[in-house]
């Protein structure tokens, strides 16, 4: 399956991938409304890791053997066999945080102010994920490896 991969050599640490993620998953798709109009402020489903001159975006690996699915007591996390996407059903989520405890990439987040998590859905149905499209230096690629 196609996944999002980061190229640390060219990442400039601008965090536009984070912004793009929040905007894409907002109702308005407008950056100002997404960040200023929603309270508490939503979180991106990816994050930029930074230390000294080095930075790169960390995002869901859509694992073949996803631990978040294994540990989910509510059946909210599933691996879609056809697409390979690890999906999260917010309706079923019980807010037990087991997935946050298990995901070795740290990419499952608490949905601020809600008793549930959010995670990357590869911009369901969008084609190229918003984070990849937003990256000004092509430090994110969406490809099969």
């Amino acid at each position, binding site marked *: 399956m196609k*996944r999002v*991969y*980061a190229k640390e050599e060219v990442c400039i640490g601008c965090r536009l991938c984070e912004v793009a993620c929040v905007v894409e998953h907002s109702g308005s798709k407008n950056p100002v409304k997404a960040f200023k109009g929603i309270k508490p402020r939503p979180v991106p489903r990816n994050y930029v*890791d*930074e*230390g*000294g001159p*080095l*930075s*790169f975006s*960390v995002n869901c*690996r*859509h*694992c*073949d*053997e*996803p*631990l978040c699915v*294994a*540990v989910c*007591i*509510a*059946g909210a996390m599933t691996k879609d066999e056809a697409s390979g996407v690890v999906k999260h059903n917010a309706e*079923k989520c*019980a*807010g*037990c*945080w*087991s*997935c*946050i*405890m*298990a*995901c*070795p*990439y*740290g990419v*499952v*987040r*608490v949905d601020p102010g809600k008793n549930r998590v959010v995670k990357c859905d590869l911009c369901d149905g969008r084609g190229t994920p918003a984070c990849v499209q937003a990256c000004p230096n092509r430090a994110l690629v969406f490809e099969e490896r």
Partner: protein
Amino acid sequence: MNYVIIGNGAAAVGAVEGIRRTDKENPVTLVSNEPYRAYGRPLISNLLSGKIKEADIYLRAENFYEVQGVRPILGKRATGIDLEKNRVLLEIGDAVPFDRLLIATGGIPFIPPIRGKDGSGVYTFTTLDDAKKLAARVGKVKKAVVVGGGLIGLKAAEGLNDRGVKVTVVELADRILSSAFDRQAGDIIERRLREVGLEIILNNSVEEIVRVRGRVKGVALKSGEMVEASDVVIAIGVVPNKAIVEGTRIITNRGALTDEYMETNVAGVYAAGDVVEPTDLLLGQRRVTPIWPNAYIQGKFAGMNMAGSRKSYGGSIPMNSIEFYGIPTVSIGVSNPPGEGYEVRTSGDPAENVYRKIVFKDDRLVGAVLVGRIEKAGVLTGLIADRVDVGAFKDELLEGDFGFVRIPVETRRRILAVAR
């Protein structure tokens, strides 16, 4: 090829999904004495508290068995395993023949010999039916006692408290959650539970459930005190439910014993989940660790191996995630170092319900306890499981601002480049 699974919990579901990885054809029969399709057992407390409805507790879609080619026999107990004729005996009806068998019978509540425990008004709290029985008492119960201040006991206490019942928890140890969490985390949660109205009695135990004309009136404690209650929940812990294999050639210790492929000493017979005594990856010895992640993952490995793969289950790492009244808490690996040779560092402000403890053995991370702030907890789990050398960034792990940038490039690329 006939697959048979005894049980219908996390391990059984993992096994079905594991078998179907490679074998899409051969029939799977699943037997469970519980009359329900697979549900999220930990969610029974949410059902009791009214946070979810029964329809929301099920783990997979309604057509799960059909889609997976599984014949479920629900509401029937398996009474024995005939290893000569390779069949599972059922309490009613025919025996079920197998070529590959999985024992996924889970755990059963441990009930100490307390005087007065038999009769109405005394409950356990591990099944959907238990939750329904207790839920049916809501409105009629004013005061209840929960025996046991571990995870399950506190979950029962929370559920009852949310329904307006005055709950007293009686715990033998000098702190709650003593097996899965450390003292500091236990103390923070204890304080919070008291704030929301629970009464917690430590260093004490229930000597007798006192009845008057058969009806529960309260419990008599070892200290001599008497706590008034009409209902008592016994939740001291669960033990491997290995009754079905006892008296067979299948070797057990505390729980069923398997090799790294989840196969027992009898070829073709596998075991997974709470019934098993798996190898603890960090301690390097067998240890019963009755938690959901282990059950599902062991089930999955068992299933894959039953279907002919050869996949080694590395071992289990204890991990627990709970949230009581707004305080999320996670413990991973060695949360209470068992002896010398561990380095422990802590940070946070317990008075503010924030606390972080990191346990090292030399330059390896082996345990963590996080209270209040649990973001990216899984990164720690990953570092523990992968035995990453963390010598260069121990402090960052403690502060919680640790990033993959700190991991040497080779290791980092290995972790981030691949999908597991």
